[in-house]
């Protein structure tokens, strides 16, 4: 019989008390969230609270083994920092994956009050569309492309649905021909996502949709009107109902932007959505605080921020759970789950004129114009600008390297914040980890559809 294993608490573990008693454990290298009742919680606390403790299974074998199996304890001598480095380096060095965020147009049929875009470019030029096709072919030929992810963005992408159809036909045929993995999704306001359009999208492999509703009709129509005015809520809900009633294979993330002005009415929307999509695994909901994102009405909007915003978001998640609507946020606690796409060297935003960006927010920031796609499919990139986005993370930030959340965000939650403000971009789910863990625990412990008080 060998010497007993010696463990120590993982530096990526946090433990937070639950308001109803017991504690919640989270490990960011595993992405595991685990609730422990009293009196076990007290014993776990005794084991984990001292980061320098050396622990053997002699005294509390089952507990120690269980904690080790879930990653809350690691073997003494194990280099967890090396694991984190490997996680980050593995992400950054991938050459087999290409993620394109395509803007088939920057035009939009809505004029949301908080929108930061200026809609300056029309439909994607034909030369740019040809460049996209050639880029994908080149990536396969030169870099052994195995995974292609397409995100349609805008403007409102469905305004240029013909561009989406044209390129998606190519992507599906190319994927079938080469055997690469192809996934596609769309961020849409949902107004033009009629039953026939949704079916055509799914047929073309565009199966993931993010659709925004800012509350029930009166609230939504106030913040997300048609350009020039006009209600949009009823048409979007008609489209969502049609999708829910059919048997199409898709995933729809229903997003609600909340502010002090509308947060009180969001539960009304949640109930309405519950009537349509309860227990339908194709649908999930997320809630996001409205920020001052740079739009022309920034001075006038009521933004939400800080702990108040995070708590409101978590409460809305519980409300949704009460109506048997799945939440779409848990992935942010997983390893790499809080890394921004802009930090990935294989992710590119392609604007209708061929200008390449990294971030979908700072469209007019010169630092976000990192290159140009030629009609021949060549990415003419400025390496210095690219590094601002892709090599500006935990590898160069001592604070991030010592953080419990490092595997999840890798110091790359928002490169834009590092670039524009020179500060560390900590994600809100890390800053408010306690309320987040308690909420996710409650979501797991409460039956879906149980009313939320």
């Amino acid at each position, binding site marked *: 019989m060998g010497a007993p294993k010696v463990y120590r608490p993982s530096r990526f573990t946090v433990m937070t008390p639950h308001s109803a008693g017991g504690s919640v454990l989270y490990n960011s290298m595993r992405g595991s969230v685990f609730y422990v009742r009293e009196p076990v919680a007290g014993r776990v606390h005794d084991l984990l609270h001292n980061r320098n403790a050396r622990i053997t299974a002699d005294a509390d074998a089952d507990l120690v083994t269980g904690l080790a199996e879930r990653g809350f304890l690691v073997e003494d001598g194990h280099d967890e920092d090396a694991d984190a480095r490997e996680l980050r380096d593995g992400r950054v060095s991938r050459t087999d994956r290409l993620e394109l965020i395509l803007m088939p147009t*920057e035009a939009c049929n809505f004029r949301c009050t908080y929108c930061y875009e200026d809609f300056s470019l*029309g439909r994607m*030029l034909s030369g740019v569309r040809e460049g996209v096709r050639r880029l994908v072919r080149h990536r396969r030929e030169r870099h052994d492309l195995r995974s292609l992810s397409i995100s349609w963005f805008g403007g409102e992408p469905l305004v240029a649905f013909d561009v989406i159809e044209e390129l998606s036909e190519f992507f599906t045929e190319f994927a079938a021909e080469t055997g690469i993995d192809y996934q596609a999704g769309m961020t849409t306001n949902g107004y033009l996502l009629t039953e026939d359009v949704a079916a055509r999208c799914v047929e073309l492999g565009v199966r993931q949709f993010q659709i925004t509703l800012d509350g029930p009709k009166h609230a939504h129509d106030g913040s997300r009107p048609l350009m*020039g005015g006009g209600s949009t809520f009823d048409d979007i809900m008609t489209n969502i109902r049609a999708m829910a009633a059919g048997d199409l294979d898709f995933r729809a993330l229903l997003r609600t932007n909340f502010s002090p002005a509308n947060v009180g009415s969001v539960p009304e929307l949640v109930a309405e959505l519950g009537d349509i999509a309860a227990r339908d695994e194709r649908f999930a909901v997320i809630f996001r605080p409205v920020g001052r994102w740079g739009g022309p009405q920034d001075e006038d909007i009521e933004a939400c921020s800080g702990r108040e915003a995070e708590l409101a978001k978590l409460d809305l998640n519980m409300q949704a759970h009460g109506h048997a609507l799945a939440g779409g946020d848990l992935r942010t606690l997983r390893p790499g789950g809080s890394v921004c796409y802009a930090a990935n060297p294989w992710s590119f935003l392609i604007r209708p004129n061929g200008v390449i960006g990294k971030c979908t927010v700072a469209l007019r920031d010169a630092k976000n114009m990192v290159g140009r796609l030629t009609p021949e499919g060549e990415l003419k990139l400025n390496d210095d600008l690219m590094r601002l986005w892709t090599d500006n993370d935990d590898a160069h930030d001592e604070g991030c390297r010592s953080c419990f959340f490092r595997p999840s965000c890798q110091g790359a939650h928002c490169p834009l914040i590092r670039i*524009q403000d020179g500060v560390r971009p900590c994600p809100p789910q890390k800053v408010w980890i306690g309320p987040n863990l308690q909420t996710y625990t409650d979501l797991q412990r409460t039956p879906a559809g149980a009313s939320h008080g």
Partner: protein
Amino acid sequence: MAERRLTLDTDARVMAWIGPGGVPKVADLDETPPRVHEADGPEGARSVVPGGTAGEFLVVGDGTVVPLRWTAGGVGSGDAIPLPDGAREVGAAGGLIAACTGDALLTYDGRWRERAALPAEPVCMAWQHRRRSLLVLTRDGSFTRFADEAQAARDDAWADPATAVYDEVLGALWLAHPGGDARTLMVRVEPWPPRTIYQAGLGAGVRGLTVAQNGEWLAVRYGGDRPIELYNVSGRRLFRPPPTAGSAGNSGNAASGVAFTYDNRLVTVTEDDRVSFARLPARVDVRTAPAGGEAAANEFFEHGGDLDIETFWEGQMYKASKPRRRPSPAAAGGSR
């Protein structure tokens, strides 16, 4: 001089028009400055419309239509295609040519085929790119839509407009003065069936409308001596057009014609065929100054309010280009 009708290709990057003597002219607007190329056209060339793909146009003459194709090497003309008798509206429909007569919608794929009967004279025919369908408004207030099959909808309130134009962004037709009254309507045609969404305060006497590629602007041509004005759709206000580079003064000269490029420039062609530009603000969020609503917008304009558009938008565009940190975009993942 008659008004120039400027036409852009499907990319909204190459422009064509009929010059003096009925000569088709083409210019690549991404060139600095754009060179104007002459092309061969049909006898009596009177108008030019977009073709089915980038760089292509259709020049309409007396009883025939001639395809033009612009490439970096210049402009080439195709064989003349005879138009059906009584053809009024001609345009591209994807890879086909479409035309309306007084009572039918037809497409050409080597021969003309009737696709739908029309209940009255056509006012406007449009190709809906994103739905790959043809849309025709007829004088009796009927919409006829043809993709694989024809659909129709009618409302007396849409009958007999002074002019109409299709806007791909809103999926709507703008109808000026239907039934001869003062209103300009925005009639949504997508999702089908059509319905009126709102009215726009363009004032009386509208004779022609041109829609910007992003739907943000309407160039409004009026009868009489009133110069062209720009209506901002989201701000619901009229503006005097800015001067275009190379033009002597206001670009709103009715004889100059206007068009909007894919990158939101206002283009004019002078009487001597010089092309000039003005970069437009992409997003005007004028927000009901001074008092709100369409009436206020008109009042502002008609009383001589003169917003310094350049100064106003320099400020706005700067804001739009500089997101703020708190609350961070990261916290919310952007505005969608």
